[in-house]
């Protein structure tokens, strides 16, 4: 968002609310019930906005994504009748439903979520009950269009009654399929009603936990990313929560041992107390009050006692199974911040395994940053988390693969090969948007071709043009330069391939896999290796600049290996012919160059030896000519 570009647009109708959607941009809901995307609206601000709801007043609205489609739902009220509208602005479809009447009670608060093409609308009614309304999304629009005001039937989801007393709810949010949170006030005989935040299990119709808010609230409750936001007195209070799979035992507060399987602990205010984020100042009084409010509900007593410290490994692993990304992240951060203990390494291995298991089960779950951080900061090995690289390959997480290749000492050749193949096959365009560590390649891969002078200058260090022509009567310098001139792969791909070059392997095990490499990819890889070799040879010390850049030995070993594995294919391929012949000539020139150097070295050695002989010999008779 660029605030500099903000400008004012005057619209032709009143706006009720603007909804923003993760990928769908912004949706503008007008008081008249019309919906426009912000883009469309800003193109022509003065466009006519139709009025869909004549005298109805919008009470609530919510926007969701269903597939690639934004869906906007809003409720209206007119003469104690409530209507629900479901709009798909992209498809220009609009459905109007009427909510079933519920005696004298009227809805106070709505909330909705979409699962499986169905909108689940939850309504908090003034009779202290929560009703659930299901609205199917995919209908044959044409037919339905004809019908007037389809009436939606609702079902009672929950009665907000707490041991006889009834919670007068004011706001409602859905936490997951079994849990909702309600902010409301609990009347106490002879006293002012006390306000509290409650979490209910709808499956078992129980109150899971509640938190008293003695300073009073505005009656509003928001919930984003597993945090509640509410106004408590003068303070904006942020409360983190966790939901676990509900179980009967947990619901009735009979959870005995938190370590037993299939039993989940539930929201625990106390463990999270420390993380309460207090935005404005807090008076001593409120602190004292909060301390009182720490008294938890009956059902949670046992769990509270058992879990006040950091989570044990077992618990953590359980939690990793299905808590949301955010929870996983915070838990693991806590774990990693711990002082290193002897078993921490193993623990982290287990954690990573648990995470990858979950990833395998649920392809949508993939905590990329977390995994990268773990790999980067911990000395993991392949055997400690055998599935990690497979998952990363599946998820095409190239950066993670790069890290693993650079860091793991024990990657099986099969996986190395899979990585190589993945790297070679991924398109350069796609790579441009991928974040990989470029340190190993950035120092020598020429992004542009305009630094010709620099290179020719360097080249003279290795071998001069004339010398080369003297040695082998072909015109190698030109050719080799034309091939070695520019890097055959992009910077990102080069960095990834370098990671492969860096990994440890055994030739015997790698060779069979390499034979399977598609010919085009093999040629590309060879081209890149050749490029590296030429680059290396430019320098006197035959090393490439940069961090973790491949060494000449790694390059040569891979080149030999690749040629061994693919030689018959290469020979057949017309496009590999030039490459092979250039490579051959270049290598031959290098061999001659080095054999010359060896000769010089030998001569120098001999000179040194003679000199040494002279030094050590304290007596000699020499011929001295004086002219």
């Amino acid at each position, binding site marked *: 968002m660029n605030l500099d570009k903000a400008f004012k647009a005057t619209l032709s109708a009143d706006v009720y609310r603007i909804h923003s959607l993760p990928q769908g941009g912004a949706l503008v809901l007008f008081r008249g019930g019309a919906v426009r995307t912000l883009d469309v609206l800003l193109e022509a601000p003065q466009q006519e906005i139709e009025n869909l709801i004549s005298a109805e007043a919008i009470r609530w609205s919510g926007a969701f994504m269903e597939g690639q489609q934004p869906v906007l739902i809003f409720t209206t009220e007119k003469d104690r009748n409530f209507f629900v509208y479901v709009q798909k602005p992209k498809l220009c479809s609009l459905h109007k439903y009427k909510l079933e009447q519920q005696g004298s009670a009227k809805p106070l608060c709505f909330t909705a979520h979409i699962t499986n093409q169905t909108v689940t609308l939850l309504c908090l009614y003034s009779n202290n009950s929560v009703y659930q309304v299901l609205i199917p999304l995919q209908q044959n629009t044409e037919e339905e269009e004809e019908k007037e005001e389809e009436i939606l039937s609702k079902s009672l989801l929950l009665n907000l009654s707490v041991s006889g007393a009834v919670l007068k709810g004011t706001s409602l949010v859905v936490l997951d399929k079994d849990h909702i949170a309600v902010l409301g006030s609990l009347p106490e005989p002879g006293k002012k009603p006390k306000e509290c935040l409650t979490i209910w299990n709808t499956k078992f119709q129980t109150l899971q936990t509640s938190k008293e808010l003695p300073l009073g609230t505005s009656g509003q409750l928001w919930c984003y990313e597993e945090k509640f936001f509410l106004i408590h007195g003068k303070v904006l209070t942020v409360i983190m929560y966790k939901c676990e799979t509900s179980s009967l035992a947990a619901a009735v507060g009979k959870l005995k041992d938190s370590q037993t399987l299939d039993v989940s602990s539930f929201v625990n205010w106390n463990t999270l107390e420390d993380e309460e984020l207090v935005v404005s100042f807090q008076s001593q009084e409120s602190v004292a009050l909060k301390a009182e409010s720490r008294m938890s509900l009956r059902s949670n007593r046992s769990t509270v006692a058992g879990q006040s410290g950091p989570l044990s490994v077992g618990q953590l692993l359980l939690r990793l199974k299905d808590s949301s990304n955010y929870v996983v992240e915070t838990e693991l951060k806590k774990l990693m911040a711990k002082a290193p203990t002897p078993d921490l390494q193993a623990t982290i291995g287990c954690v990573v395994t648990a995470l990858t298991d979950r990833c395998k089960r649920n392809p949508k779950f993939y905590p990329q940053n977390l995994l990268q951080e773990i790999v980067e900061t911990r000395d993991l090995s392949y055997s400690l988390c055998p599935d990690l690289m497979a998952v990363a390959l599946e998820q095409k997480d190239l950066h993670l693969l790069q890290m693993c290749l650079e860091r793991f000492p024990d990657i099986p050749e099969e996986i190395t090969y899979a990585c190589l193949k993945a790297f070679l096959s991924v398109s350069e365009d796609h790579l441009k948007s991928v974040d990989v560590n470029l340190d190993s390649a950035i120092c020598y891969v020429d992004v542009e071709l305009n630094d010709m002078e620099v290179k020719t200058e360097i080249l003279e260090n290795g071998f001069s043009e004339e010398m080369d022509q003297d040695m082998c009567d072909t015109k190698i310098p030109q050719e080799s330069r034309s091939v070695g001139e520019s890097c055959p792969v992009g910077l990102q791909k080069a960095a990834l391939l370098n990671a492969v070059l860096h990994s440890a392997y055994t030739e015997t095990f790698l060779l069979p896999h390499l034979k399977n490499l598609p010919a085009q990819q093999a040629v590309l890889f060879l081209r890149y290796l050749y490029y590296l070799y030429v680059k290396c040879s430019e320098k006197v010390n035959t090393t490439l600049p940069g961090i973790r850049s491949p060494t000449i030995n790694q390059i040569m070993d891979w080149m030999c290996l690749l040629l061994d594995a693919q030689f018959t294919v290469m020979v057949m391929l017309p496009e590999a012919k030039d490459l092979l012949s250039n490579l051959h000539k270049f290598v031959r020139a290098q061999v001659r160059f080095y054999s010359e150097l060896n000769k010089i070295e030998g001569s120098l050695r001999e000179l040194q030896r003679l000199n040494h002989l*002279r030094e050590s010999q304290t*007596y*000699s*008779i*020499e011929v*001295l000519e*004086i*002219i």
Partner: protein
Amino acid sequence: MSAGRAWAAGAGLDIPSAPRCVTQTRCWTPPVIPGHEARSVESLCWAAGDRLFGAGLGGDITEYDLSGLSAARGVDGGGGPIWSMVANSTGTQLAIGCEDGSVKIFQVVPGGIQFERNLDRRKGRVLCLSWHPSDTHIVAGSIDFFRVIDVTSGQTVQRIMVNYHVEKAKRECVVWAIALLSSGTVVSADSFGRVQFWDWEQGTLAESHTVSTSAVLSLAVAQEDSIIVGTSTGATYHLQLLPVRLGGLEKRWVRTKPFQFHSHDVRAVAHSPTALISGGLDAQLVIRPLMEKVQKKSYDAVLRKFTFPHRRLVSCARKARLLLFQFSQYLELWRLGSTEETGKDGEVLPLCRMPEHLVQLKSKGPEHIYSSCVSPCGTWLGYSTASRFQLYRVHCDGDGVSLRKVPKVPKLLPPAYQLQFSADSESLFVASARGSVHVFQLLEPGGCKHLHTLRPPSGCSEAVYLLAPSADGHWLAAVSGDWAIHIYNLKCFKHHCVVPTYDCAVSAIAIHPSTNNLVIAYSDQQLFEFSIPEKQYTSWSRTVQSRGLHRAWLERDSPITHITFNPKNPSHILLHDTYLLCVLDKSLPLPDDSALLMNQSTLKQLPETARKRQLHAFKICKKFQPLLFMDLLDKNCLVVVERPIMDFKTQLPLPVQQKKFGT
């Protein structure tokens, strides 16, 4: 010309034990006073004009007889080993710092020194001393502290701990050098590598400069605003008192220039008006001109390095092909190897006979050897220490060699500063004190008779240090410490003439075998040829003087130490110094300054015909360095003795290890 060549296994260094202070460096061929094993010299100072005193761990204060080149009188300091000695500004008093912590004052009186009094004695050896320029106070440096003593009362008026502020105070901090400036500032140099400036009256540290990680060993002050210090890593540093702001009054000491000229301890530093001078344990003397003080770009503006010795420590028996090496306390006699092959320039010829170590002759007693010589025929051998003169008859029986001491050598006043046998090995010339030369007749099978004593007619107080007999046995030239060259007729034992005085030290002389011309090399690199029969300079010598020698020749650092002639070619004079050997061909034109002096390598590349025009009189070969000795054995055989620097560096204690280039 094929050259026999021997490498000396070791030769004594002239510096008895690297003196702790250098005070005068005017003379280029310094007279040498041989050392004494029991008397190491820790400190030297000039007093009462030009009298030289030395003190050392032997506990004696010795005055040196500079004309007789010997240690003259010794006085016991009475405080155990003496670590330091300084004279006051007028040179009338000497203060010594002793092992027992005492500081004693001696009065310099004619003919010696006299104990005057003890100053306040404190525990801890006194390693360095310095007088206040007004002679009112003495500052004495010890281990961990230094103190300021009032000379009149003899009381310690201030005692300052130098390691008070240092964390690493567990090591002792040795104050190696100290200076008291007229402003009342005390400059101390210590083993922590610090040069510190103290206000002694307040007892406060004004400035501290950590110049080195190793010890600072020596310190010299000039003009109260310039200091040079030397460290144990071989580095010297220059510190200057400079205004903080240009034109401002506030001044600070600033370390301005670091120099690294030595490989080992810099034991002594001196500060002349235009140069910094340092002497190190690596036997080198370095003169580093201060560029801001030198106006012209001239000889003075160039860094000078001197390696010693500058005298002959090897003698050669030409006919017998023997070499005698003189070490500080023993002699070694070697027979040269031989070959039957010939070859091209630069070739190493296979030996048909290996060189042979014939005998090692140890001198008895702690005294170092003054001089030694072997006769041309190789049958006589003589040496002299400060108190004894010994003559031996060398018997070669087959491969074995035996020495027999010649009994009843005439009693003379030793030492002999130079020994020289005549060409026919029938007489021995002994250079002695007061300008006298004794002539001995050698008798078969092993006897010796004093024949005559030659003395300059005008008398002379200085000792003779160079001798040159003529090949025909007719003439003898002798050079004494006053640089006068006297020529004697040996037929009638009469003084023949004196060479016109030239105000410079003579570094080598020799008489031409056929012409009887005396060739003289001075330490300012001038060369003269004096005809003995005609008692005048030769025309060639006059030409040389009028033309002038090549600038590159004159600007060499090391003096010519030996001259010899080619019997086959009378126009050839062979000379050598530490870095070159030169065949001077009088028949060729002298080079002028525009010509290349060292032109041998150029000549070798030219075809024979083209060489003619390029030839000049100086044929210089720099192949052998550093050169200790060179002599012509016969018409085409030259013996050369090298003294590799590395060879004697390995005999020195290891230098302080230094990091170089991050290794």
